[in-house]
């Protein structure tokens, strides 16, 4: 009888956890079979030891705080500038036609490719990382907002105008709500690229942070530390995605019925 109380959702969580446990067990079992030593192939036990060590020495909390600070600052600056630029350009059709192709070219020069010239301009460090992250959020937000503004059906604009809407009313009641889903999509795309960009930028241009931990661990032949860094990175992204990005999408886009999610369809 007790089986019947477990819902499908709970069963999924149980099975998913079991999958992760099985993966860790298989990894541990494979260590003596591979037998290449902890430098080439550390096991979960080595990784756990490295994790405790990094935690006890206070390295991990410091690095995590540095990375989080850089990421939050970069994403916020990029998104804010992106929205402002999009409103300046996007509300004017000619301006939008002038800038859209150049914007898509600038976005095609991936942030990773900007790191070398940022290093020349700003040196190794915080400024380079911050600008690279802002860059990779700025362009998708800008570009997708432009697309969103352009996709507003002219009928809506004409209807609002005919009913006597002022320029500000037109913007706040018609254009922005129509462009918002596209804008949010751009933000999520940018936030995803920025996260990987952060890890890379920290490998190249920083002396702290999760990306630096991943890089430094391998350079010092402490591969277990590298894997600790990778796991923390994965958990951090799942946290950011589930706690910040998805709720934003839910609170705006889905609530207004603009996007039907897979969940709602079930």
């Amino acid at each position, binding site marked *: 009888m007790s089986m019947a109380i477990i819902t499908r959702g709970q069963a999924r969580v149980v099975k998913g956890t079991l999958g992760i446990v099985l993966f860790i067990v298989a990894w541990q079992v494979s260590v003596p079979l591979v037998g290449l030593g902890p430098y080439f192939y550390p096991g979960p036990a080595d990784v756990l030891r490295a994790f405790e060590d990094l935690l006890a020495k206070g390295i991990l909390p410091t690095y995590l705080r540095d990375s989080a600070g850089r990421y939050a600052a970069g994403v916020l600056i990029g998104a804010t500038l992106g929205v402002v630029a999009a409103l300046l350009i996007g509300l004017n059709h000619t301006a939008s036609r002038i800038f859209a192709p150049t914007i898509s070219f600038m976005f095609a020069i991936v942030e990773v490719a900007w790191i070398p010239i940022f290093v020349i301009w700003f040196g190794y460090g915080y400024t380079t990382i911050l600008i690279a992250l802002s860059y990779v959020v700025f362009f998708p937000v800008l570009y997708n907002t432009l697309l969103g503004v352009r996709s507003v059906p002219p009928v809506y604009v004409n209807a609002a105008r005919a009913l006597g809407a002022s320029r500000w009313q037109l913007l706040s009641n018609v254009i922005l709500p129509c462009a918002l889903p596209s804008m949010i999509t751009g933000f999520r795309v940018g936030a995803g690229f920025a996260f990987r960009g952060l890890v890379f930028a920290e490998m190249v241009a920083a002396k702290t942070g999760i990306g630096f931990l*991943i890089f430094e661990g*391998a350079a010092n032949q402490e591969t277990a530390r590298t*894997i600790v860094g990778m796991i923390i990175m994965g958990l951090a992204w799942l946290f950011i995605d589930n706690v910040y990005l998805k709720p934003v999408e839910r609170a705006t886009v889905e609530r207004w019925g603009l996007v039907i999610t897979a969940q709602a369809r079930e």
Partner: protein
Amino acid sequence: MSAHVPSPGRAAVGNFLLAGIAPFLLLALWFVLPHIVSYQAYKLPSIATVAGRMVEALADGTLFAAIGASLQRLAIGFTVGNLIAIPLGIALAMNRHVADLLRPLLTFLQSIAGIAWVPLAIIWFGLGDAAVVFIIANTIFFAAIYNTVVGVESIPNTLHRAVRSHGARGWQVFADLILPGALSQIILGFRTSMAYGWRALVAGEMIAGSSGLGYMTIEAVQWYQTETIIMGMFVIGLLWLLMDRFIFTALERATVVRWGLMQR
């Protein structure tokens, strides 16, 4: 009368001219900047220097060699990653218990795929080609397997029941329902996974490579050859736009859009 018909050719020329304004302004700014602000010449070489570097790199073949090395790695990584991930993803997703078991693990692994594997790749394969190909294949693999599993799962249950109640079994279910049902998601996933793969390529070459566009630009930092960096950036941007336009958009048009599963 014919004068009143708007010609599509003229509109295209208009668009082209408008689109040229912003790059022209950027170039003009670049041109006058040294006359307004003073900075060391190596920080931003003149347009002529960059153009000269480009002509030189085109003439001696180094630029084509770098492009060729990068694209070859990308192609191998993309092919290998997808060839392993798609069949495996379909096999996993066809069994609901297996899919439930693996979904959280795959979500997790997908979120660390790519650049974070660079140090491990260096340990396992050494600096060079194999490490970079591994990083790209790894990025593509995790994105593709995730997309495939989601694609198979997005097939509505009613279709499963309909197909089965009409007597389809085994291979028929796979060929007539699962594969076409999951294919649009898989094809749409190509572009996203390639966007991450392209970044992983450039990043991987910068840290672990010994040739290619990423290696060329990071190597130039050592010698303050900013003109080589700018040339590399320009080529990286141009190649992505060309790939996006002539491979992925074209592929989506020929498949997903044509099947009526997505409007453009």
